Every structure is written in structure tokens, then in C-alpha cells.
């Protein structure tokens, strides 16, 4: 079983918080990796909110490959940041030669382009880079999106933290939302792409559990949108369904739970909105999930949420103070980073619930 966590704060905070959050839940995972998505960035990235950031781990040739594709598209560099790394013999980590975070200016031809056109360009470019890197096994591209940064590595999370200097707090590498997870995907091959959180066009998802409807989710999703690729992990399906509903179909988030864990027929027909719910259950039957799962998701506007499988087979808890909310698998993580909170306000969501936290840190509990 793995452990997942999300921190959302009114103020910028450093990823060390995420490491501490996950460290105290260490017994629940196998310490095989660390991955995080940072959204709404502070520090050195704060002035570049509107510009896309490419997050990559690759070889030197990989950088060239990406550069060529980026410049062919017309992107120009605004900022490059390579984290300082601290190598030591005893660290358990499988490093890549380069970790690159590139802030880019949109091509000139996109000056008057619509938001949608820009978003499409970012996905297309990322997919191009991904395919090119993959073909020659030269690295990985995790995200290419404004105000979002992704880091993933294989190894002991403690050592990954040391390697990237993430244990020491500072002001230049911060964000208002960080989602993190400390385990490689152990169900299938260990590849960097398979590590949660997954990110696509502003949407983030990470999960604890196993989606036993992986096959049918995957087979449908492959036909729904070009960005639904990879499928190195059964949990990617949660992200793609989230993206599909909210971004492509433009349905409100409240229908996510109705799609992935639809109510049984007998319950639906007793409800006022039965027509809608039945149509969703029929139409998106292939996006239903099964098996034990807790999902944490993030939306482009900074909202984060959590929900579970319909049997509530995995734990999750939400704890909060006035300026920070934490969603994570076990309460020990929250105790670690929010020791001062009122634990009586902690929320243990049930199987038919979605807990949503907006940018004002208002917590809502939606019943399915």
C-alpha cells in the first residue's frame, strides 16, 4: 500500500513540508521513490506565472532533443533552473544525468492565440518531446504547463530529499499546492512515468490502491483524447477521467464521483436527479473504477479534493489550520506538519463523499 498526500496553503511553502508529511507515514510504503507536483509556484518562479514550465529528467542528449523540438515550435527560454544536487555514495537513488526546469516564452505566432490554442500547443509539444525521448531512451518529460513543476525519482525518499537538497527550507523554491507520494508503482514495471502524482493540463491526481477496472478504463480513454497516453499505472486512469469530465465535457467536479463510483441502480432510481445519474452511469460505464482506492486530485484553479472507492477500502484524512489544509493517507502525517491544529476538525471522508478545498481554504463535503 502506498501513502499519498497533498498540502494546500495560503502562503508559499517549501517541499520539505511534503517530505515530512510523507516521512511519518513511512511504514506504509516501501520507500521506493518520491514524486511531487508543485502548483502555484513562489520563489524564483513567482514572476513567471503565465509561462509554461517544462519539467524533465534526462540525459545531455535528451536536453538537445527537447531544445530542438521547442525551438522548432518557436518557444524561447525565459528561465532555466537546474536543482543543485548533492551526490554521495551511500544514497539510495537512481539518478538521471540532468534535471531540467525550463520556463519558456510562447512562440511569437501565439501572441494573439486563444487560451485553448496555447493549451493545445503545450500538450502537443510535450507529447512530441516525450515520444522523441522515449524513442531513444533519453529521458522523461513530466509536465509542461504554466505555474506547475514536477519532480519524480526512484530511490529512498529520504535520500532523494538529500540529493535534491529538499530537506532544508528556503524561499526560492516554494509553492501553494504540493501533492506528493513516496512509492514507485510496484504493480507493474518500475518506470518514472508510473510514479504518482500524474499531471495533465492543470489537473493532478494521485491515488493509493489499485484500480481493477484498469483495462476497461484504459481501452476507452485511449480513444478519448490524445493526451491520454502512457498507462504505466492503473492510477493514471483517475487523472484522465478527471480531465475528461471537467476539462473536455466541462462537467462540474461533483460528477466525478458519480462517474468513477456510480451509485447502484436501486439507489439512483430513488433520487430526483436520477435521469442525469443514469445517463452518466450508462454513458461512462467504462470509466467506472473498482478495487480499493483513495484519490487526491487537483484542478487548474488550485482546488484540491479527495474521494474514495465505493467500499472505502483505503484510508484518508483531511486536517486543517487557518492557512493550511492537508489531505493525506494517515493522520500521523498531519500530526507531523500541523501539530497545532484542532484535530477534532479532522475529516475522515466516507465512501460516498468528496471533500473539496478551494483557494480560500474553505472545506466542502459533497455527498454523492
Amino acid at each position, binding site marked *: 500500500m502506498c501513502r499519498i498526500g497533498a498540502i494546500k496553503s495560503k502562503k508559499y511553502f517549501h517541499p520539505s513540508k511534503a517530505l515530512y508529511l510523507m516521512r511519518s507515514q513511512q511504514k506504509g510504503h516501501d520507500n521506493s521513490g518520491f514524486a511531487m507536483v508543485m502548483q502555484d509556484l513562489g520563489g524564483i518562479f513567482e514572476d513567471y506565472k503565465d509561462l509554461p514550465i517544462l519539467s524533465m529528467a534526462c540525459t545531455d542528449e535528451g536536453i538537445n532533443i527537447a531544445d530542438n523540438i521547442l525551438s522548432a515550435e518557436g518557444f524561447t527560454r525565459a528561465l532555466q533552473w537546474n536543482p543543485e544536487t548533492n551526490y554521495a555514495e551511500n544514497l539510495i537513488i537512481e539518478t538521471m544525468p540532468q534535471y531540467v526546469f525550463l520556463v519558456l516564452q510562447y512562440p511569437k505566432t501565439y501572441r494573439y492565440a486563444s487560451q485553448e490554442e496555447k493549451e493545445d500547443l503545450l500538450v502537443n509539444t510535450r507529447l512530441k518531446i516525450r515520444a522523441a525521448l522515449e524513442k531513444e531512451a533519453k529521458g522523461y518529460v513530466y509536465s509542461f504547463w504554466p505555474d506547475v513543476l514536477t519532480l519524480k525519482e526512484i530511490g529512498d525518499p529520504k535520500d532523494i530529499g538529500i540529493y535534491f537538497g529538499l530537506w532544508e527550507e528556503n524561499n526560492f523554491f516554494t509553492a501553494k499546492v504540493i501533492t506528493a507520494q513516496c512509492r514507485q508503482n510496484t504493480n507493474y514495471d518500475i518506470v518514472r512515468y508510473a510514479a504518482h502524482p500524474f499531471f495533465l493540463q492543470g489537473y493532478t491526481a494521485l491515488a493509493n490502491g*489499485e484500480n481493477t477496472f484498469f*483495462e476497461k478504463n484504459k481501452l476507452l480513454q485511449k480513444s478519448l483524447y490524445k493526451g491520454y497516453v502512457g498507462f504505466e499505472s492503473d492510477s493514471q486512469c483517475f487523472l484522465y477521467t478527471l480531465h475528461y469530465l471537467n476539462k*473536455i*465535457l466541462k*462537467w462540474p467536479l461533483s460528477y466525478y464521483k458519480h462517474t468513477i463510483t456510480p451509485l447502484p*441502480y436501486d439507489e439512483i432510481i430513488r433520487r430526483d436527479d436520477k435521469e442525469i445519474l443514469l*445517463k452518466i452511469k450508462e454513458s461512462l460505464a*467504462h470509466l467506472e473504477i*473498482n478495487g480499493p482506492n483513495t484519490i487526491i486530485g487537483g484542478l487548474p484553479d488550485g482546488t484540491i479534493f479527495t474521494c474514495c472507492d465505493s467500499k472505502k*477500502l483505503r484510508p484518508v484524512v483531511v486536517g486543517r489550520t487557518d492557512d493550511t489544509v492537508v489531505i493525506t493517507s494517515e493522520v500521523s502525517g498531519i500530526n507531523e506538519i500541523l501539530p497545532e491544529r484542532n484535530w477534532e476538525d479532522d475529516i475522515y471522508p466516507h465512501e460516498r463523499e468528496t471533500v473539496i478545498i478551494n483557494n480560500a481554504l474553505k472545506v466542502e463535503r459533497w455527498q454523492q
Partner: protein
Amino acid sequence: MATIKVNELSRDDLFWQIQYDTNRCTFCGKCVAACPFNAIEPKVEKRRKVVSEAPTPTPKINFQTMPVIQQVVNTNNYCRGCGICEKVCPNEAIKPVRNPDNKFAMKIRSTTGNSHTRGGRANLNSGDRALDKIVVGRISQMTDPSLDAQRHTFDLLAPFGRILPPEQLPFDIKDGKLEITGNTPPVRWIYPVIIGDMSIGALSCRMWEALAIATAYLNEQAGMPVRMCSGEGGMPLRLLKSKYLKYSILQIASGHFGWNRIINAMPQMQEDPAGVLIKIGQGAKPGDGGLLMAKKVAKHIQEIRGVPKADLLSPPNHQGLYSIEESVQKMFLSLNSAFKFKVPVAIKVSASATSVSVYNNLLRDPYNIVGGFFLDGIYGGTGAAHEISMDHTGHPIVSKLRDCYLAAIHQGKQGQIPLWSGGGLGMTGNLAADAIKMICLGANGIFTGKLMLQLAGCVGNDNGKCNACNTGLCPVGICTQNQVLTKRLDVDKVAENVVNYFLAFDKEIKKTLAPIGNSSLPVGRSDALVSIDKAISDKLQIQYGC
């Protein structure tokens, strides 16, 4: 040397020979009275017996005339091996015995110039089933726990009706909520097993009634929304006008039998039917229309179907259907509009090398009116067919169903026209086992017919036993209109058996869902299956295990 007539049909040619023991027989006559085929008859034999009555041996030859039971040898009244004589004999004096050296079918052809006809299903290769080489092999052991089959709540229903992809749903958002702003095709959520289309006429009224009673009971008392398809031949008026109509799927086939009555009854219908099934073909005898022998067209059948007493042959195809597009436009639109687009209309075809093309076309149908694709495999049963059709034409269902599902995936349209499959499912007696495998391979549900007959007491099997459904003389009253024979069928008992079987099915299918950790039907979850046959696993794209 005696002269013999070697070319005549002889006892040795018959498929079944009667084994009769004079010493046990008390000449009660029950067997002769019970055999519907007149395949045995009483006669007298001259017997030579040596007796000695004095204290010392004084052998004397006596000639006696004895009554015996004898097998009839001709091409009409041959023994079907149904075993009814054995059942009624109080002394175990008589029984049919299979004759492995028989040449019967060949003799029929050579003596009558006719093809061999019978009922039942394919007798050739039907024991070697792909489904039996597949197991549900993805057992939840650690991270995703198995469920408790007894206590967990499962959601077992399946859709019947045209399902729109989400982008075509007429949804609007108002105050953060979705709203329906237009019409969508009707979809019914029903139990994933439909009692398959056997007509009144092919079945005795009592048998049909028993199925209708079982269906109503399952719905009203057991909370299982099981639907029954009428078969081509209409329905009794009383049922058409009753509230139970909602549990029936009306079938229309090329003969349109019974539809005059259905249409006339429409103004008086209290409920819509559960659906309409357009039968294009059936798996047991693909390319053939229905066939009801005149001897089964009794008075009440003439009335329900609106026909005179005659052989009723449905044409092999629907008049006026030349292409898939045309079938969509004409039949579906007219039937959909007949019920004001409130009743799902589905199509039943015989599995064929071309099924995928038909399904692909229907999936692309711009009118969104095809509410289900019923695919019927070669091992389906039939009331009457030429043996050559049953044994040598048709297509196995398992791979064809899978092909259709994969074709839908290829179009990104899986689930939009629900797939229902049948044709020999449950022939080993375990329908739940077959159902879960078909569902994992992509079926939304299954349909079953022959198994229902077996539950009712059919004595036939897939190895030449009985198979006399075409004769109108079904020895147990299932598929005959002969009133003496139908009396043999206990309507309530049959209904009870069917209900019990469904209750057992419900428990058993849960015993397969529980270990794979699924509370709803795992449609298309082929990763849950493992085949012990490499060729099958390759063909179906499932795991191989040995």
C-alpha cells in the same frame, strides 16, 4: 438359405434400440401408452419352450403365443431414446439403448429423399467448449481484497437500450448541476440474463406460461428484473393488456407472426413492453427462418398468430431489408416510433464471420436507435431444423462476441450498443460460469433458452437423445400442442424450478465477482480471465496459464 431384404430399414440401423425383458414385463401397457412416437407396440410372439413335468426328465416341446412389446421400425415411428417408457415402467422391463453402429440419418436420407430434421441443438463437437478452457483467474489476494459474496451488496444490472456517448448527451449546466435538456434513447436496466426467445407455438402454452409466471415472480417477489423475450409468435391478449407486459420483450421476425394482434392491442396496453427484439437470424440454424410444423399449429396458436393450420415458415430474411443501413432505417424506425421511442429496440443475429461488420455499421448508425446487439452462437437450440443446419452451419459465440467488443473498442464506441450473447450458454448446466466469462469478454448480458427447457424437464441432450422438438410430440409437454402431452408438464413446478435456478445463478455469479473484487459487472474485464489453451488465449487476447 433364407431370403432377406437387406436394403430395408432394420432395427440395427436405428439410433436407439429398445431393450425389453419379457421376464420382467407384466404387460401393464404403460410404456406403449406413454410413448408419444408410437415407437413401441404390443404384439404376440410364438415361443418355443421345453418343459418337463414328470419326476424323471421327460422333455416336451411347447409352443406358446405370448404378448410382448416390440420396437417399431420405420422412418416415422422410430425410437428417440427419450426414456419415457423406462420412466413409466414399474418393473424396469424396458429401456432405450444407444446403438453406436446406427446409420439412421443416412437411411432417412436414402429412403425418403428428404433431409434429416430434428430439434435440439448441434450434436457435433458441442462438448468441446472454449468456455470450459477459461477460468476466472485474477483472484484478489492482497491489495485489492476479495469481497464477501454472501454479505456484500452487488449491483448486477445491465443496460438494454442505445447508450449515447457523453458528448452527445443533451446536458446543460445550471447552478453547478447538470440538467437534461432533450430526449435520449430509452435504456432499461435489467438483470443480465434474458430468458431467450422461444415462441408460443414452438413451446406449449403451458411451458410458455410457466416461463412467464417465473419471470413475473422473479420481478415481483425476488426483486430480480429478469426479462423474457416472447419469441416470434405473439403473446396472449391477456398478457399484452396486463401490467406484466413490462417484463416482456416482444420479438418480431421475418414472418411477423402475432404482430397483427400486438398492434391491435396497443391502445389497450397498460404498460410498455420491456423492449422489442428484431430477429434477423438465430444461431442454431443461421440463414433459416423459423419453422413451425403444421402439427403444432393448434387452434389457440392459429388464433394468437392469426394464421390457418399449415406449416409456418418464416422467410430466411426480412422482406425489404437489403442492407444494414436499410434495416436500421426501416425496421428500427418503424418499431421505435410504434412505441413512441420509449421502448428500446434491439436486433438479434446469428453469429457469423460477418458479425463485426454488421455491428460496426450499427455502431455508426446516426439515428442512435439500435438498442442492443444480440449475438446467437452455433450451439443455440431450436424447435425444428435440418440437422445439417444445426451441425454444420453457424459460428461459435465466444470469439465472435469478443471480436465485436474489440471492434467497438477500435471505434472508441464500446458500450454504446450493449452486447448480449447466447447460443449454448449454460449447456453444461452452469449458466453463471458461462455468464461471467462472456461478460469479462465484453458482453453486457446473456440470453438463454434451451437451459430453461432443461429446467422444465426436457429429457433431450446434445448427443442424439430425444431431439424430437420438431415432431409436435414432445414427450414431456414442453414443445407440443398435444393436450395429452402438455398435461404432463406441471406449470407451477416448472416456474418454481426456473425461479430457483435464477436464485442459484444470482448466488453463483456473486461467487465469481467476489474473488475478483468487483461489485458491479466486470464488462470487458478480460484481464480477469485466464485460458489454459494457448490458441484460445491468443484469439481472445486473454492471459494464458498452464
